[in-house]
């Protein structure tokens, strides 16, 4: 029977070189998507049964990671993320799941968006949301 895990404990590591070891501190929300794959419509005049025919596309989208963290401009990795987005520099992101085996996905890609969240003066946190898109296949380790 499959085990169940709480969501708390995700780790995101980021660096300018492959195999990052430094974590992004104060990670709040994380949304991670393995790239979508589409079906190619192969319906033809001989298609029967009233249902379209299709084959799976050979290529899928690259992975995408959306994260938010409590932003500290003085934090070295926070600044690396910001500067990479600003300059379009390639960065290396590894996300590690909170399961007992610490499953992880390693990527090469770019920070596509960098946005300070709504700054509510009463209960707001200095928080930034970034999105990262891989430029190729990820490396998954269970």
């Amino acid at each position: 029977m499959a085990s169940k895990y709480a969501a708390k404990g995700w780790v995101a590591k980021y660096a300018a070189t492959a195999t990052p070891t430094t974590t992004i501190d104060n990670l709040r929300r994380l949304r991670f998507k393995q790239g979508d794959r589409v079906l190619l419509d192969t319906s033809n005049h001989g298609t029967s049964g009233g249902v379209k025919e299709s084959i799976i596309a050979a290529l899928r989208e690259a992975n995408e990671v959306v994260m938010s963290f409590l932003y500290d401009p003085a934090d070295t990795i926070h600044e690396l993320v910001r500067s990479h987005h600003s300059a379009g520099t390639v960065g290396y992101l590894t996300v590690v799941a909170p399961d007992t085996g610490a499953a992880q996905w390693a990527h090469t890609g770019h920070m596509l968006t960098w946005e300070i969240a709504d700054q509510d003066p009463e209960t707001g946190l200095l928080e930034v949301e970034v999105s990262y898109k891989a430029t190729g296949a990820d490396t998954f380790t269970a």
Partner: protein
Amino acid sequence: MTLGAAIFQKLTASAAVKDLVADRIFPVTSPDRPATPYIIFNLLTSEPANTHREAAELSFHLVQFSCWADTYEAAAELRDILVRALDNQTLPTGEIATLDDAGRDDFDQAAQLYRSDADFTIPNRIAA
């Protein structure tokens, strides 16, 4: 420094507050029949800034301040002075208090005192 201590220090540093209540600023409850007017403050709720890997270092507290006096006017006046002493002001902890609500009045039949409330959201650093 605890949040309660910071609140007490901030309010007693206000000449306008101190002129009315001296040091009659009590956490949670007052001693039996104190001189009026006086202030009681309560921490109602808190929302910690949780992250995936770290213990929460910051928490947002909703703090209720109740201003007690013999007359409605005196209670309302004390509340207004308290609001001016605290709203958007920096506490000794370094955090800024933000007014959340200042429109709640009541009368306590048992104590025969008027009450005017003001609620503040106050961030507070959680000690490691």
